[in-house]
């Protein structure tokens, strides 16, 4: 992919981006290289997972892209503009969610925060109301939208956070661990709704998450970084094809127990293994599947840390 080519279909183009932090310690000043010379681009309407282990530089990269942090080196073109020089023009076109940082007014009802944020973006009351109703329905927050934010559960609050960042209908949405600490129901609502919005509104999504469910549900492309370096940039399908080294065979028996075997994709023992499993008891069902994405990503992390 040519990262220096910024066309009208490119939502984001990051070129040779680096960020270093000076850190003081007893041994003297040290430089931490959080992000090292990474380049990638995202086409409009794409949903991209930006993943990596803790401390890989994901959030730092997003903070540079959204003009929260100054890069040490490199260029960023977001919707054709430099985030630092054109922040005022960019802000109405982007939405940002940091899972561990709230943008809602703690003591006010969520609906009031939406109205405030809408006003900040210069929306009319009618537009805010219309958008809020639409998003409230999608994210299923109608029943608690009038409650003060401090009284909401984490899952409820996070859904409100996402609505708040979508109220001005951004073209590109940055999500930094949006489902962290949420239960499966809240996660599901968020994933499905974001996917739907990306499809219906043509919204570009750049998502960082440690939850592979988020990645599989929302994204079709994965960018993996580790120790500040870009390791991998590929589609989810290719990632699965290329990095799956084994298949999982699960046999379910009539007495209720199940057995699982892992077998290398290059192995010629598949038929023998299936035979062995069928002979182990009264077989009621059998499945052959890929290992979960989590395992693939974990093995990639391990490979990179070696």
């Amino acid at each position, binding site marked *: 992919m040519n990262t220096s080519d910024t066309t009208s279909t490119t939502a984001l183009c990051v070129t040779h981006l680096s960020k270093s932090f000076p850190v003081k310690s007893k041994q003297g000043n040290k430089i931490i290289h959080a992000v090292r010379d990474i380049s990638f681009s995202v086409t409009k309407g794409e949903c991209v997972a930006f993943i990596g282990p803790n401390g890989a530089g994901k959030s730092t990269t997003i*903070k540079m892209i959204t003009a929260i*942090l100054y890069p040490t080196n490199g260029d960023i073109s977001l919707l054709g503009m430099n985030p630092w020089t054109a922040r005022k023009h960019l*802000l109405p076109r982007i939405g940002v969610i940091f899972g561990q940082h709230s943008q809602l007014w703690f003591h006010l009802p969520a609906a009031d925060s939406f109205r*405030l*944020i809408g*006003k*900040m973006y210069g929306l009319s009351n009618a537009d805010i109301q219309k958008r809020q109703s639409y998003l409230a329905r999608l994210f299923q927050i109608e029943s608690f939208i009038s409650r003060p934010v401090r009284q909401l559960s984490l899952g409820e609050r996070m859904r409100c956070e996402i609505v708040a960042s979508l109220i001005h209908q951004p073209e590109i949405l940055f999500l930094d661990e949006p489902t962290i600490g949420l239960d499966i129901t809240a996660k599901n609502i968020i994933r499905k709704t974001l996917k739907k919005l990306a499809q219906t509104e043509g919204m570009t999504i750049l998502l960082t998450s440690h939850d592979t469910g988020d990645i599989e549900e929302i994204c079709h492309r994965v960018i993996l970084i580790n120790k500040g370096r870009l390791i991998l940039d590929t589609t989810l399908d290719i990632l699965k094809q290329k990095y799956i080294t084994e298949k999982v065979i699960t046999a379910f028996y009539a007495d209720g127990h199940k057995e699982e075997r892992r077998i290398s994709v290059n192995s010629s023992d598949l038929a023998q293994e299936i035979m062995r499993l069928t002979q182990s008891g009264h077989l009621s069902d059998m499945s052959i599947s890929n290992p979960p994405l989590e395992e693939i990503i974990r093995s990639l992390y391990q490979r990179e840390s070696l």
Partner: protein
Amino acid sequence: MKKYLTLLLAAAREQISHLKTLSARVLLMLIMLTIFRQFWMVVKAETLDSQTIQPTDLIWYLLLGCLLQYGRPEGLHRRIEEDVRTGDIAYCLLRPVSYIGAKLCESLGTFLVRLPILLFFGGIWAIYLSGGELPHDFQAFPVILILLTLSMIVLSLGTIFVGLSALFLQDSLPLFWMIQKAEYILGGLFFPLTLYPQWLQTLAMSTPFGYAGYGVSHLIYEFSWISAVQTGGMLLLWIIGISGILKLMYVLLMRKVAINGG
């Protein structure tokens, strides 16, 4: 401007939901007025110029000072310091509003809700303490309230300055204490500046506190349009000056601030 007005109204709404805190402040203000009234009754013969300043005037003078003290949001510098220390201040860049403007709206929204409540109870108490008498220039009250709002803006900008100074000082509390004491003394919160030695009066009036405190409050018993216009003009100049300093600080801060990754 609409967005700042919305922020101001949000702060006002939030304040309405904190009526318990406000009632505690009202009570504290009434106690302060009572204590100082007793104090002045004892010392007035020796210290006050009875030709120009009457005890009634002083009660209202103190009331105006109290409106400034208790009308502003508490802990604003602490919240700003926290934003600076944690790097949260950088997240405010994601909103299409100025951080300083938003904090000022928070102060103003709080003040506009607290002012009528404090004034209502404080006014009744001041009338009671002065035996039903009104201050000498009571008819100037509307002008004084406008100037009082300008004073509040000046002092709030000062508090924002203290909060942002955490970038250089790590802990803004010592500076906050210094500024607070300067506000009490140089602003003439408890005593009109005319009771101070001349050199201290000159010093006080060369700081924003002199105009924000005494400059406005003394108009309640010594009103003149010249004085009011001069005080208003000086307060506006201080607002412009401090805003400029804050803007510079903010730019510097945004270049220095470091936020942890995820």
